[in-house]
C-alpha cells in the first residue's frame, strides 16, 4: 500500500460475533483488572506462554508503573514488537 493511495469508501457498520470455532483456547484472566498496563501484560503472557518473564515471583498488581513498563519493554523485545 503506497502512501499516496486514496481511500474512497466509508464504513457504515458491520460484524458478527466471533464464532467459537475461531476462538483460541486461552487461560481466563481476572475480569476486574482496571490497570491498562497490567491487563496488557497479562494478555501477552497468556498469548505467548513461551516468553521469559522477569520478576516472575512478584504479582503484577504489586508493581509500580515504572517496573511494569520495564517488564513490558522486555516482553516487547522478546516478541519483536516495535
Amino acid at each position: 500500500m503506497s502512501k499516496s493511495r486514496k481511500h474512497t469508501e466509508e464504513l457504515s457498520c458491520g460484524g458478527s460475533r466471533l464464532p467459537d470455532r475461531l476462538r483460541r483456547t486461552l487461560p481466563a484472566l481476572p475480569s476486574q483488572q482496571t490497570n491498562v498496563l497490567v491487563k496488557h501484560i497479562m494478555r501477552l503472557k497468556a498469548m505467548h506462554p513461551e516468553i521469559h518473564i522477569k520478576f516472575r515471583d512478584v504479582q503484577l498488581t504489586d508493581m509500580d508503573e515504572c517496573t511494569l513498563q520495564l517488564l513490558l519493554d522486555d516482553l516487547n523485545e522478546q516478541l519483536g514488537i516495535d
Partner: protein
Amino acid sequence: MTRLRANASLRHIRSDSDVIADFVAIGPAVAAQEIDLRWWGMPPGSTHGTGEEDSHWVWQLLCEYALGSSYREATGLRTPDGLFQGAMIYSTDAESVLEPNSGAVYVDYIATAPWNRRGVTDSPTYRAVGSELLCQAAHHSHLLGLRGRVTLASLPGALRFYRERGFLPTGDAVEGMPLLELPPDRSRAWLIEKGLIGNV
C-alpha cells in the same frame, strides 16, 4: 509507540478541518445513554426508521457481551462535543484464518454514527471514523504480538472499504458473510503509514 494511541484525527467535512477524537472504553451504561439513545433517536431495540443494517443493534447489550471476556474490548471515538462518532467491539483471542495456529484480533461489531453516513444523510459530519477504529484494532493486534492480523465478517456493502485497506478474502464465512483478514505485511504497511510503528 508501545501503547495504543489515545486519540485520532477525524475530518470534519463541512469545515474541511481536522478534529481530535478520543478513544474511550465504553461500558453498558454509557452505551445505553450515549449511543443507543442518541444515534437513532429512538428507544434501544426499536426497528423503526432508517433501514440501516445496524439500526436494531443495542450497544448496551453489545457492551455487556464485551464484558463477558477479559479478551474483549469495547471502544468508541468521542469528539470534544461529547458525541460518539463510532464504536467497535473486538476480541483479541481469535484464531487467524489465513495462518492457522496464529492469533488475530477479530472485530465483532463496528459502526459509525448515523450522521456520518452517506446512506443516512446527504451531508455527513465526519469522515474516517470507521477507518480509525479499524486501525486501532490493527495496532492492538500488533501490540499483542499478533503481527497486526485482523479478521472480520463483512457485509456485502462494506467489502470495498475493507479491500481498500488491505483485507483479503479467506474463503471462509460467518453467518453467510465473507470472512476477511488483514495479513501482517499489509497491516504493518498501514501502521507505518499512520505513524504508529517505525519503518525498520
